């Protein structure tokens, strides 16, 4: 999948969960949960949505690789690549 498509997917799913936050405004290397003000349930819903959309398992053990927007994007690119 193209890098652009993955970034779009991530942005869209984040927007669905935190519609009040502009993704262009966040620090993309900062802690994603802080930047988007999301809790463990929101994060689980994000992982669920991305897993379904990109057909990935996204195991819990990989959560530390999804700390920031950039980390998450790199992780998704690696797994779909």
């Amino acid at each position, binding site marked *: 999948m193209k890098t652009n498509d993955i970034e779009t997917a991530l942005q869209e799913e984040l927007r669905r969960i935190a519609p009040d936050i502009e993704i262009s405004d966040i620090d993309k290397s900062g802690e994603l949960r802080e930047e988007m003000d999301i809790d463990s349930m929101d994060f689980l819903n994000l992982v669920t949505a991305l*897993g379904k959309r990109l057909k990935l398992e996204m195991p819990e053990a990989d959560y530390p690789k999804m700390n920031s927007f950039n980390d998450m994007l790199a992780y998704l690119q690696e797994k779909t690549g």
Partner: protein
Amino acid sequence: MSQFLMPSLGADMDAGTLVEWLKKPGETVARGDIIAVVETQKGAIEIEVFEDGVLDAYLIDLGTKVPVGTPLATILKAGEAKAAAPKDVEPKDAASKKAAPKPVKTPAKKTAATSPPITQPKAKAPPPVGTRQRITPAARRQAALAGVDLATLAPGPDGIIALADLSAPTAPKSATQPAPMSDMRAAIAAAMSRSKREIPHYYLAHTIDITTAEKFVTRTNKKRTPDQRILLGALYLKAVAKALAKYPELNGHFIDGLFHGSKAAHIGVATNIRSGGLIAPAIHDVQALELDTLMDGLRDLVARVRAGRFRARELSDATITVTSLGDRGVDLLYGVINPPQVAIIGVGTAVERPWVHKSKITPRRTVTLTLAADHRVSDGHRGALFLSAVGKHLQTPEDL
């Protein structure tokens, strides 16, 4: 024929504005169907019908604010003939209803679908049945505060009206002028002031080792796809429900000087609303739910609260509340009891700290639980036993 009433919306709300009908006159309705949406101080609440039948006629126009208990519509039982004219409806209304059993402003329907809303001829009511206007709770609230007519708003590119789409009418207030209290804040203020005024709270705290429970969650989730995974939050709810079976004086409602205990643990889950404020709708009968079913319920509830939609029953039924700081908070929080309930359990943020485990000081994950309870109904002694029981249940998560 029976009347469909505006249901109770919880202790802190006594009226709501009818914003949407989801069933039309003549349509069949079944018990549990959502037939209307009411906008309240705390967001949009879906109203369920409690009997089977056929929706006969609307008694209230869209956009009308009505107190709890007001008839909203009439419902015919299966096979029952349509009444000539419902007695308790004003003649003028009944006439217009009979002639056209649709909201009065039906002409707006077509224009709303084909042309930009802004050109609508004085469409004062929200869109009629069938053309759901999608608007975020924050935007709806802001529009109400600023007196903006929802029908005049154009949605963003995604078809949803968000706060940003309202920017024009909400000019920034001058720095010297204090902002008015939002409806949400007013509702919280009313309930919490009443709580602190009427309820003699006592407070207890208890720090427990949560390592085993966390490992249980990790182990459970290891082979599961994301949609099947559980969260520690579900374990807390189940542990509370189990402990309540032995300490029923913490579960129920205190009304007019009398405590009405509840056998069922309908646990209110305090949940943040993104646009500000919080609400604690209930998950029903937690004591009877398997962990996985409970987790599904929790997911569904949080998703709906985030979207600003929940059901009336969920707001009025809670018999106790659990409020949790999640993983980005502080050590402990003491809750304020949500009347007419008599207890609230606070869950702090889990942290790793030195702990004596099997006679050795080792790093363990710990969490501090608190209880705020009503001294008119229970004492600290029993409260402490209860809180301790919650902690013990969490040590054997496989039994939850």
